[in-house]
């Protein structure tokens, strides 16, 4: 078994919110005990709705938020609340592609500067080498060399996302976290970017964490999938297990919610979730999903279910994980 590139062990990120005078200080458990690992060259899909903590988890993985509890190991670098990461070393290991291609590029920097500055910062000072790597990277993401001196506003959304991808890959990282990389793009452009990401993954031997709410995209690109709900992973397994044999009712609800005109009959009404995600400030007792769950019984409000194994590598945090429907 290959060594993990990234492993999270019981990672938690909590925030103190509120005011000591008005209403008191509460703890927001944005990420509450996540255990995950990503191997070199692998794509892990991370699924969840807004408020589930995936953005906070992303920031923690990027080393931008210190963990409150637990540890993280990034390519041999051990990180915890007490030992902050070496940011330069992190930068050469983990990079990120952002959702919004409009806000994620500095409007006052040309493509060349956006790509060349990080190289110089990381000690590549030879002018020709910098230039060669910039042009090579641009070619890899499908941009022409003569576009190097243009500003972001001269590009379309899809092209901007290509620049964003080039920036993430310019330091030759091993792991790239893609945060909803296509959801802000025009529908007819999405396939181009998904294909590009997959090509680059093979070409450069990258590992991805693909955060998306679009299950079609996640199924298409992922080797393994983790489903997150209110700060915790509720189901995790190979893509086929998650999509063909989901064991957590939340995963089923997500799949049932996809409007798919080809399988309209296959959506069973009772798989759908009711209501909306609770606040992480005040999660429901027991299993956090219980107020929305069609399978809810007394035990669900009493205790949080164990993250038990369904089959090797496939785990679900549900008291009824043995039920197939």
């Amino acid at each position, binding site marked *: 078994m290959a060594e993990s590139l990234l492993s999270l062990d019981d990672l938690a990120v909590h925030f103190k919110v509120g005011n000591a005078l008005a209403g008191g200080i509460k703890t927001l458990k944005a990420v509450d005990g996540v255990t995950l690992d990503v191997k070199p060259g692998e794509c892990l899909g991370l699924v969840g709705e807004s408020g589930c903590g995936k953005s906070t988890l992303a920031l923690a993985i990027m080393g931008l938020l210190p963990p409150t509890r637990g540890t993280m190991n990034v390519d041999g670098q051990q990180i915890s609340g007490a030992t902050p990461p070496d*940011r330069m070393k992190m*930068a050469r290991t983990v*990079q990120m592609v952002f959702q919004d291609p409009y806000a*994620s590029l500095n409007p006052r920097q040309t493509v060349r500067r956006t790509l060349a500055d990080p190289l110089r*910062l990381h000690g590549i000072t030879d002018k020709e080498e910098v230039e060669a790597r910039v042009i090579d990277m641009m070619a890899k993401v499908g941009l022409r060399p003569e576009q190097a001196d243009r500003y972001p506003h001269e590009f379309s959304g899809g092209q901007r996302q290509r620049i964003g991808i080039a*920036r993430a890959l310019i330091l030759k990282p091993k792991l790239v976290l893609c945060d909803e990389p296509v959801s802000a793009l025009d529908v007819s452009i999405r396939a181009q970017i998904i294909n590009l990401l997959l090509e680059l993954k093979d070409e450069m031997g990258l590992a991805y964490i693909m955060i998306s709410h679009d299950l079609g995209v996640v199924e298409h690109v992922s080797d393994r999938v983790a489903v997150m709900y209110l700060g915790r992973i509720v189901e995790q397994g190979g893509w086929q297990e998650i999509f063909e044999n989901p064991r957590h009712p939340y995963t089923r609800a997500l799949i049932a919610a996809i409007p798919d005109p080809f399988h309209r009959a296959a959506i069973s009404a009772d798989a759908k979730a009711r209501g909306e995600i609770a606040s992480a400030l005040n999660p429901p007792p027991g299993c956090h999903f219980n107020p929305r769950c069609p399978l809810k019984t007394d035990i669900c409000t009493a205790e949080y279910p164990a993250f038990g194994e369904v089959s090797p590598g496939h785990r679900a945090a549900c008291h009824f994980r043995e039920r197939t429907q």
Partner: protein
Amino acid sequence: MSLALKLPRLRLKGGTSLWVGGGLVAIAISSAILAPWIALTDPVLDANLMNAELPPSWEFPFGTDAQGRDIYSRIVWGARVSLSVGIISQICNSLIGVTLGLTAGYWGGWWDDLVSGLTNLMLAIPSLVFALAIMAILGPGLVSLVIALGLTSWSYSCRIARAQVLSLKSQGYIQAARILGYGDLRIMFTQVLPNILGPLIVIATLGMGGAILAEAALSFLGLGIRPPFPSWGSMLSEARDQITTAPWLSVFPGLAIFFTVLGLNLLGDGLRDYLDPQSTTRRG
């Protein structure tokens, strides 16, 4: 200050406001630099009571004052004081304000609380009163005037800078820079600052107008430039009693202030458009 803030922001098409504003400011600056050559008489020594309070004529294009000195020459020389006070004090204000605002907005925490508290304190005390206090300690004169005005009205640029940083901080490209290993200062000066320059330049140009007016007020109170050396403000103040009998005494220094402040406002507006890479009117 009120004059500068109430001026309408003229929006002329294309780069017109840049050129008109730049032209007005250039006239003011060049007259300050070229004062020894373009002034007709010495602004201080050429007093002649025989010529006192003459209306504008071919000999004295802007008329003369109570001591018979040529108003035109005094305005040309006075530009040196007014502009250097305006520009230097505003550079000080911008440096202080932007540095405090950038760091406070970016780092947050106790430093932000401290800076915000200080800013509110500065805003609560009228800056003119603050400047008065400093002048009282340092004594009158050009240098103390610049120091007094340069230390007292940074709160506007500080607030603007801080608010802009807060709204930019969560933008993807700032995050991306952190992920790429950029240090905090590098992010502040290469990623944040270029993107918030527009409003800061506008504030700085408005502030220059304000500083020119504040100089006038302080000079009037006898704390600024000492007579007989001219500044626009002191000329305006001295002319108050004769506003009905010899209006040219106040009209011409007033116009000088008005056109310079207007020029600065237009220039600020034009610069903002010019500096914005998204602006389609850029470079023609």
